[in-house]
């Protein structure tokens, strides 16, 4: 499966800003199921773009603006290929009680301490938890139940919550966006001693859905012997081929797609985002290859990509030649 992802953010300010720094966490993760074939990042001011990595090792782009302006836009585009992995493959063979012992051992707690402790955005006391685990069932079944429980009991609604909404507030409101669903999911999983991390990424909702959509979020939980599995409570889904992961962290703060520090007189700013995710055929031409700037790619990957591209070119030429041949023969 291949996807084209386009992200665009436009920031407008009510007064000139003199200097600014932005940090973007947008590039799809390279992992066993995802391969970034092409990456591009540009900004309308042609400001310097650096690359670095965040705390969790995910690549980030930084923009340092040194000239005054009141509007700037950023565009990122990626072509990725995605393999499907079956999350159910190793689950049935492991007995639940083994997991329960394992996740309670001190070594396990230390190893996953980062994703077991509550943060401000995932703060929830045990007696506030609206969902409890059934100890006779497996960890996976419980998490799956939690996933659908959230889906059925909360409604997806924008503008009722903001980036600082806590799980307790979300429970009161009964509605929110993917961030809120994910934070509550994480809080409950962590209360049940399951390492859980916030995951940001793109969701492919089927071709034709363009614009308006934002970056998506879901939860990843660590199940011993199986590893990290993604749960998407907004859609009651296990994260599979339609979920393109960008990064993970303790909560939204670690995965914010855009962070900025602005110096100047501007008191108000407005940001509009658009995200487009489209499935494509592997043989579709890499149109966005023609752009001026590329985010650096690891060398090995570049080579592999080059080889792939050359092969593609070769195939296309072969096809062309065959077509020509056929036309030739028909003429004959």
């Amino acid at each position, binding site marked *: 499966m291949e996807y084209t992802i386009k992200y665009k953010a436009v920031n407008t300010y009510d007064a000139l800003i003199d200097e600014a*720094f932005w*940090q973007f966490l947008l590039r799809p993760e390279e992992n066993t199921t995802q391969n970034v074939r092409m990456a591009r990042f540009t900004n309308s001011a042609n400001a*310097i773009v*650096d690359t*670095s*990595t*965040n*705390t969790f090792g995910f690549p980030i782009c*930084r923009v*340092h603006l040194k000239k005054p302006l009141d509007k700037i836009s950023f565009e990122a585009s990626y072509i990725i290929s995605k393999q499907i992995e079956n999350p159910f493959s190793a689950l049935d063979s492991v007995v639940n009680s083994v997991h329960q012992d394992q996740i309670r051992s*001190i*070594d396990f*707690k*230390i190893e996953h*301490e*980062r994703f*077991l*402790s509550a943060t401000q955005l995932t703060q929830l006391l045990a007696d506030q938890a609206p969902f409890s685990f059934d100890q006779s069932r497996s960890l996976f079944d419980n998490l799956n139940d939690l996933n659908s429980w959230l889906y059925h009991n909360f409604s997806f609604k924008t503008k009722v919550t903001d980036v600082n909404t806590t799980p307790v507030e979300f429970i009161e409101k009964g509605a929110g966006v993917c961030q809120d669903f994910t934070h509550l999911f994480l809080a409950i999983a962590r209360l049940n001693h399951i390492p859980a991390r916030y995951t940001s990424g793109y969701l492919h909702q089927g071709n034709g859905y363009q614009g308006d959509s934002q970056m998506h979020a879901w939860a990843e939980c660590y199940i011993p012997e199986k590893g990290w599995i993604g749960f998407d409570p907004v859609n009651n889904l296990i994260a599979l081929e339609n979920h393109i992961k960008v990064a993970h962290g*303790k909560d939204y703060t670690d995965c914010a797609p855009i*962070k900025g*520090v602005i*110096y100047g007189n501007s008191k108000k700013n407005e940001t509009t985002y658009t995200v487009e995710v489209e499935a494509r055929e592997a043989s579709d031409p890499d149109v966005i290859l023609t752009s001026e700037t590329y985010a650096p790619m690891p060398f090995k990957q570049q080579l592999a990509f080059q080889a792939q591209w050359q092969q593609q070119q070769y195939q296309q030429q072969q096809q062309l030649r065959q077509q020509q041949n056929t036309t030739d023969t028909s003429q004959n």
Partner: protein
Amino acid sequence: MSTTQQSIFSSYEKDPKFYDEIFDEKGNVKQVYQTLFDLYSGHSSQDFAKLNEKAKASFFNQGITFQVYNDQEAKEKIFPFDLFPRIIDPEEWETIEKGVLQRSKALNHFIWDIYHDKKIIKQGIIPLDLISTSANYLDQMIGIDPPGGIYNHISGTDLIKHSDGKYYVLEDNIRCPSGVSYVICNRTALKRALFGVFNHYNAHTVTDYAQNLLEIMESVKPRGVDEPNCVVITPGVYNSAYYEHSYLAKAMGVELVEGRDLFVENDFVYMQTIKGPEKVDVIYRRIDDAFLDPLEFRPDSALGVPGLFSAYKKGNVCLVNAPGTGFADDKAVYTYMPEIIKYYLGEEPILNNVHTYHCSRPDELKYVLENIDKLVIKPVDEAGGYGISIGNRLTKEEIEKVKQTIKASPRKYIAQPIMSLSVHATYIEDSESFESRHVDLRTFCLLGADKEFVLKGGLTRVALKKGNLIVNSSQGGGSKDTWVLKK
């Protein structure tokens, strides 16, 4: 005794409940203080009133002031300076010096371990909760190797002398402890006011601190740098310790910068100068962790440098002290210090710890709630003496209120027996004479790559209000010049 002698020490009350630094049990002046006592007794109270004014003017003219937070209005105040120095004899000092060095090293090992393997937790010596619930534990620091392996380059250990005549550690400060500039200014002020007394005593200098701090900073330069460029970063002129930041930068001969003077490009830190950008290698930061980098920590920080943390993580710049040391000087971790020292150094602690009750443990919480009048209650993560309640000073209603606060979040509080801080003769303006006041001692210890230094001297803080036990400058304390005598 002549009449003048009687007048300046006449209102000095000796209280057998407290250890007196100057007088022994029989009321005789101790040997180290004898010469000084004789010299001072030769002056009239009018002389001291004049000298006191001079010393105050000297502080004011040097701009040695600080600000008190939580006041209705933020005010610049002179840090009150006392004319009667504290004297520590060489043997006593040797124990202190070894003791604080031992603690600093143990803490450094401890921080390394927590941000790497967490062996001490796996061994069951300290509980995981102690770390994971600490507000000052930064998981961003996991796996990072700071240059030279040093986290707490600068430690300030607070000591008191109890009524048994022994030193006890009250707390370790490893989040940019302040106060060292006062140590140096106190010496200068006393020399200006009473130069003659220095002829009779052979005290160690304190002015070598800045040179040693610079050497420590240079010892932890990033890899591949020959001559590191060091700077001091300050939150700015409104910070209570701004004087100290500017003093240290000047004394070390390095630039004093604010967040906006620095910027990060390709994970290297640069300083804006009139000659263009200049790379910065070691930063003595007097900005709290949360404000260091708005892209990594508090996004509303206007004091930090965007991208600084990733430059640090890459090893391209060294921060002094390292971010995330705060969990280790937490007052709850303090109670494990004897175990921490034994675990990492295989040594017995040289300095005593004050016995501490953890309100997070049910049986100890019960004891605390029943014996609140005999205890000092401290929040675990506040510095500067804020939020402390002393049991025997509280009214019934206040005790109830404190009990409620503790019960609401027991992890946040510890309790210690009320320690009897030793007393020292201190010049009191109102009575124009010397009276006894409670004192403590803040020491300064530096750790670098293959280098260590303990300042021979320290900040003796005085609680100027009669009977008061809290000596922090933010709570109206003053200070004394502190002499460590040469052997």
